[in-house]
């Protein structure tokens, strides 16, 4: 609690907002700012190599960060902010692509592969068991097998 107070005091004294990418970009409402950070981490800095605008110090990333905050201040929902950025920069700006007919394969792949894997396992297991049963075991061998398995 004292830590929190000290921190609040520090904020007042330094008159500098915390939790931001550059101090001058920060929104005064911490809730809004937190949303801005979350959104920023999902947006690609278009001129960088695989960096989010939250991480990048490129000029464009800064512009996008400000844009995101501007929309949020104007009362946009997260979804509206994403939509707005996509309308301006295309799907490329999203680091987590949206589900569409073109990304169906991408999003579906893990589940589909897991299901195929399980089915393949089931198939191999049953077909192999079947083959094993077809192999002729004498009663004596079966008894010995049972005994061994029980051990």
């Amino acid at each position, binding site marked *: 609690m004292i830590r929190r107070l000290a921190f609040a005091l520090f904020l007042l004294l330094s008159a500098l907002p915390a939790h931001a990418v550059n101090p001058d970009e920060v929104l005064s409402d911490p809730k809004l700012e937190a949303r801005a950070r979350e959104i920023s981490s999902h947006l690609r800095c278009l001129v960088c190599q695989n960096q989010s605008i939250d991480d990048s110090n490129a000029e464009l990333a800064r512009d996008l960060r400000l844009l995101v905050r501007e929309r949020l201040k104007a009362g946009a929902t997260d979804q509206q902010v994403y939509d707005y950025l996509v309308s301006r920069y295309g799907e490329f700006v999203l680091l*987590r692509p949206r589900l569409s007919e073109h990304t169906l394969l*991408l999003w579906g792949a893990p589940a589909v592969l897991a299901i195929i894997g399980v089915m393949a396992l089931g198939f191999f297991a049953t077909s*192999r068991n079947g083959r094993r049963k077809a192999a002729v075991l004498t009663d004596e061998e079966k008894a010995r097998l049972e005994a061994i398995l029980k051990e």
Partner: protein
Amino acid sequence: MIIEFGLYALVLSLATAIVLSVLPAVGAWRGDANLMAVAPVAALGQFVLVTISFGVLMHAHLVSDFSVANVWQNSHSLIPTLYKVSGVWGNHEGSMMLWLFILSLFSALVALFGGNLPASLKANVLAVQGWISAAFILFIVLTSNPFLRIFPPPPEGRDLNPVLQDVGLAIHPPLLYLGYVGFSVCFSFAVAALMEGRIDAAWARWVRPWALAAWTFLTAGIAMGSYWAYYELGWGGWWFWDPVENASFMPWLAGTALLHSALVMEKREALKIWTVLLAILTFSLSLLGTFLVRSGVLTSVHAFASDPSRGVFILAILVIFIGGALTLFALRAGSLTAGGLFAPVSREGALVLNNLILTVSTATVLIGTLYPMALESLTGEKISVGAPFFNLTFGLLMLPLLLAVPFGPLLAWKRADLLGAAQRLFFAVAAGFVIAIAIWYFENGGPVLAVLGIALAFYLMVGALTDLWFRGGFGKVPFSTALRRLAGLPRSAIGTAFAHFGLGVSVLGIIAVSAFQTENVVEMKPGQTVEAGGYVLKFEGMKRGQGPNFTEDRGTFSLTKAGVSVGQISSSKRVYMARQMPTTEAGIRTFGLSQFYVALGDLMPDGGIVVRVWWKPFIICIWFGALIMMAGGFISLSDRRLRVGAPARRAKKVAAPALEAAE
């Protein structure tokens, strides 16, 4: 003159590699012992020649011979000796030379330590190594010759990329390549076995040490790279799901699966076909990674390597080797006979689950990495697949795997008692939750999910120890007896416990740092303070400094906790003279397992400077866990049953596995 000698040795090594790729294989096919005997000689000869060639290149870098284009482009007479050495592989041509050097090293090791292999298998394995070597030497000679001269020689070099001027460059690529390329041996064993059409448990025993060694080095290389990126790139992240990171992560995932499936094959002769396929796929992913990084189809922090014109060549290598191996697999897999049966709930079953999840995860990373490229070339549509996608999908896939990990070693082969294992793990689950709630309390709360995550991490750690606890019989027999039993356990069991424990430690670091990290970004003037994680950082001032080949603005900070000084941190912004390229050097101080991280931002017109500070609780665990996993790898490697060349009969004498079969 010496430079030409290096090139000459390289071309000779190509000739040797071609001999190695043809004669032993023909010998194995015809049953001609003389031809097969060529293999070790040629492999060692090739290694010597490649070593000479690599040594010449290194010498050129050491003496700053700027008449060599490669040295001129990537070195500078003023950089410290360490960077002159590591600069050898800090560029495309040199890194391919390192790749080749390590490949030849592995061939030579197989030649030296493969004494207990059947002659034809050894000949075929070395021949396949020869094919890979020949392809890569050809690639180097034709498209990436590091020995090209320029005339007149420039007086000074253009310097090594400043981001690479770090001790990390001396360690990260060699370790990574030892892993990447080490899997070539598994690949060669798989292809050789398919050529012979014969494969048994002994094969798995021969392959496992190579897979284990490669996996251990790859773990080290990836962890090292992650830590390097963390302190060098200066924004506090440690994994970016960058395509090039993914390129090294995929062989690791597949290699982890391979280690586990080879275990089943060795012990129970099951999963043979699958293990062979995995061995092929793992190295194929290494090759794919090399292609992705070297061809320039991907751009990333590793972009020094980009050159599209070389892409086609590596793509050809990729298609020939992967396509060839898979074709061979398709033709021959049917002739491999299936092995032992097992119930779904058994050690084998657990390892199959491990393989299922790891394979799907590998595929997910692969698809995520290549999808944007494929979609763009098919439809022209540009999308990004970044960290948020991978965190979500990969995270979801890992969850069941992590939950299952402690069960694996507790289950008996063939048929196991799941309830019994669960009872044994009860303490691990309880301990996990108690510790997680304690940490959550001391970190002043946080997301509830973090508690579950940390509980998972400690469950993994305690779960790994649980296996040792029960195997030693602690609590049932006198303590000294249990200790003695513990010491008598096969090294591989102890290695497993280490690796699984390390995994838990890494998970702890990952969860803790994402849940409890605090961050502050402020503009500071001398005398001002900023707080993170209970520490107060005071900005003392900026000082201009001069390094051997850079100038820097160094910010000095003092750190206090509850009014008590705990030390100084400095963080700087450098400009490297030769390339006029700025970099940031983060200031990091370690407190126990946590770190305080300071990075400098822009200078403000009013004389202030933007300072980013992070408190990163438990972050060291991420890499410390990897170190423990590595230790597990080495311990397991020292298991006498795996020691290459150890006679197989020794295996029977290890009594300890009998303990677990008691149920």
